[in-house]
């Protein structure tokens, strides 16, 4: 049972992640009065890209070639290090919230380097913007999770999720405030509106897309997949650390199944929220993004203050 649960913990992220990209796209299509692509379309895209040939720039070094593998691996490890559906598997080895944050910083680090590696004007600018946003998002991200950590008296995500902080009266407001901060960072880190337009075709306004313009075939598939994983990891983090309802607290089969279902439902709710947001607001001007990220940081600071 334990082996099975751990296996599920590791493979759930990569298996489930593309689905939620599909769900967001579907909801956005509905908002535009379209029928939209099938929710399983991202899987088809990945499968096709896996079977295509690649064109690699002659300026590319090993950084460009190995970045997709590295960042995909990082998202898998990060996915296994957070509470997905069960809190009783106490991951004391890699379950620390700072570790998860810095692992994901490694993702940004390599992706930005890969964007610079090929020497196109757009890749470099993408990296520069990505690093600007990532650097300023770091404060909000650490502090929003720190709020929970202080409330729970631990920095291990599993034991934090186990404590159901939101249900305790004195922590309800701080958790909610910190969640608002976290959600802003989620949007920033995953290049969603109002930080970046994930479906833009205009190179000059791109952040995330600009860095991966040069990738093709298998490596592109891995990068797109890793980006989906990252969104899933963030959504699961938000869902389980802030609202850990339904998460399995003992090792009965029933609890685990409920946990997985609860996770999928919660992440779907996140996706609905993101999609609604993307449909009703415009992208921000780049130099207004720091204000938003500061808001996220200050919300968390207030949360710590009122605790």
């Amino acid at each position, binding site marked *: 049972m334990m082996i099975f649960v751990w296996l599920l913990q590791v493979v759930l992220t990569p298996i489930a992640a593309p689905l939620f990209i599909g769900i967001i796209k579907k909801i956005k299509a509905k908002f535009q009065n379209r029928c939209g692509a099938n929710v399983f379309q991202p899987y088809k895209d990945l499968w096709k890209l896996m*079977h295509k*040939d*690649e*064109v*690699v*720039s002659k*300026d590319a*070094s090993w*950084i460009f070639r190995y970045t997709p*593998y590295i960042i*995909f*691996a*990082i998202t*898998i*490890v990060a996915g296994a290090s957070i509470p997905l559906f069960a809190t009783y598997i106490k991951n*004391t*080895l890699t379950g*620390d919230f*700072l*570790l998860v944050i*810095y*692992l994901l*910083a*490694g993702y940004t*680090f390599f992706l930005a*380097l890969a964007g*610079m*590696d090929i*020497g*196109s*004007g*757009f890749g*470099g*600018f993408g*990296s*520069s913007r990505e*690093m*600007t946003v*990532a*650097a*300023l998002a*770091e*404060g909000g991200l650490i*502090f929003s999770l*720190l709020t929970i*950590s*202080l409330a729970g008296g*631990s*920095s*291990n995500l599993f*034991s934090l999720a186990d404590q159901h902080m939101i249900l305790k009266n004195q922590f309800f407001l701080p958790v909610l405030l910190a969640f608002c901060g976290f959600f802003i960072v989620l949007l920033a880190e995953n290049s969603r509106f109002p930080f970046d337009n994930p479906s833009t075709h205009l190179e000059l306004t791109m952040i995330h897309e600009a860095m991966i313009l040069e990738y093709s*075939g*298998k490596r592109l598939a*891995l990068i797109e997949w890793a980006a989906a994983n990252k969104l899933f990891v963030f959504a699961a983090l938000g869902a389980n650390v802030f609202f850990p309802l339904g998460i399995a607290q003992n090792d009965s089969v029933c609890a685990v199944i409920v946990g997985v279902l609860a996770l999928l439902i919660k992440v779907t709710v996140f996706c609905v929220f993101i999609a609604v947001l993307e449909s009703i607001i415009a992208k921000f001007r*780049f*130099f207004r993004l720091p204000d938003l990220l500061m808001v996220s*940081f200050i919300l968390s*600071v207030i949360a*710590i*203050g009122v605790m």
Partner: protein
Amino acid sequence: MMNILASETGFIVLFFLFAVGAAGSLLLSGNDKLANACASCFSIAGSIWGIAVSVAVLATNSVVNFTVGQTFWPLLSFNFDVTKLSAFFVFTIALISLFCSIYGIGYIKHYYRKYSIGALGFFYNLFIAGMILTVTANNALLFLIFWEIMSFASYFLVVYERDEEQNISAGFIYLVMTHIGTLFIIAAFLLIFKYTNSFDFSVMKQSAELLPLSVKNAAFVLMLIGFGTKAGIIPFHIWLPKAHPAAPSHVSALMSGVMIKTGVYMLIKFFLVVLQPVPLWWGLTVLTIGAISSLLGVLYALTEHDLKRLLAYSSIENIGIILLGVGSALVFSALAMPELVILSLVAALFHIFNHATFKALLFLSAGSVISQTHTRNMEKFGGLIRYMPQTAFCFLIGSMAISALPPFNGFFSEWLIFQTLFKGIFLMDFWTKWFFIFAAGSLAFTGGLALACFVKAFGSTFLARPRSAVVALSRESTFALLIAMFLLALLALLFGVFSGWITSVLKYISTGMIYRADAVVAGSAYGNSFVVGNGSDSVSAIAILFGVGLAVVFVIIAARFVINRKQKEVIGETWNCGSALLPRTQINAAGFSRSIVLIFKGLLKPSMQHDVEYLDAQSRYLPSSRAVSVGISDVYDIYFYKPLYGILTSLSVYSKAIQSGNINVYILYILIALTLALLVVV
């Protein structure tokens, strides 16, 4: 064997090795090769011996206290006291100088027949010996002598490449600033001496309760400025980004890696050991200074396009991070929380150690680049990863370690510092808590900005296409340079992976430092594994390493060999949206950080200058060339040092009035002075 090493003899042999190295290279300065061989061999031998001695001191749990010879002056005694803390610093210094010396064998070669190799070897050995002596001296006067030896030796190393105008001015600023710092230190020592009647550090410690609080506070401020100048805290840092890049790279590595830490060593020694117990506001001040230094340091690093200056600013940032640990240790010790004092001290010491390794690694890799390209300007680099792949790899490891990416060592010390600050937020009362929140916030942003900074440093130096012709002429560095870099890169990984073990050693050091041997520290705060608190906060380096490593291997195998193995790779041009690819179409170092600079324009005061030359001066329609230079204005110079200088100059002008040149007036002055002196004495 261990007992011989951890004794007076061991230390005398250590200094003897460096002395022979220094003297020998000076004598052999006629022959460049011999001088280099002599200086490097003895500094390597000395470093290895230093490592052995310090390990022996730690392993045998002995405190080596000895006095060499007799002096005519009653207040000065050649008294050395090698505590565990000193042994730790000796170990760090020796470890880094070992790699720098190995690197030096190859690196010095490009100075042959240009500058005197003998002088370099002399000052280099003197510099290392000065640092080791500084952290072991047990007498304030003796300490000052060694402190000056260290400062002067490093000054001569800074101005070593004397043909370059800016090195001389950098050296001058270094000399002035370091002596202003020394002035404050002397004042502090004299102040303490007034009450303890001894320059001996151990006597000072024993009679520290004689000091009234006001004197203690004054000594705190003086020492913070004095040692802080050496450590490079903002706003006393202005010498650091000028002097560190000017020195030869292996010396820069030593200066940034360990020399500035001697300032931190003295801060720890005085605030946490000698002047105990301390008031709360000391800790809060150090915490605030640490927070400001780390945040501003990394912001300035981001604006730089000189590779070594960038690294120098990043040293300021890391000193700030270390001071966060020291500051929280002070706060906890003021509030009598021994376990947390040890936790924060371990965090600070671990970061000192880690910063020494990865900063040395980065400086050595930067030196390897500079020795090939003969420029420090990052705008001239690009694509070096193809010409110097091994250097690039080492620089990448260094960048990852300094950006605190797991599983390298930087992450674990930063993790500990974060945990320390979190404990502070968790436990403190309402007002003190906000200092910790501020510190943790600035550390969080520092982490993010450091990541951006090193993406910029690595990306614009090693990636993309060459931006100038110098790149194509560069070749991979020689074996001596590479071996030093690779060993340091390996250390950065190993210290990360075995961080649990290292922190337990550091815990042993700091426990021994603060408490007497018989004092029992309640509970095992973080034992052999990397655990903080009651076991609820933990992180395993080995699990991360294997987790990420296995995942990478698995992904590569799955994607390459399982899903589709028939796939072909075609090499083509970079897709630049159909436009031509030129070196200038890529982003450059200034452009990369421009958006962050503009976001922080309130702090950084960016400047921009347009230069347009016209073909036709009258009509001004056809520009022949356009240049935009972006930079930041030197805030400290404009708002702090320039006004200070102005005040001093105007004061001097006023005081000039008493210099009439008439001998009768001077006799009158003497009379007044004598009368005053008599009055004071009576």
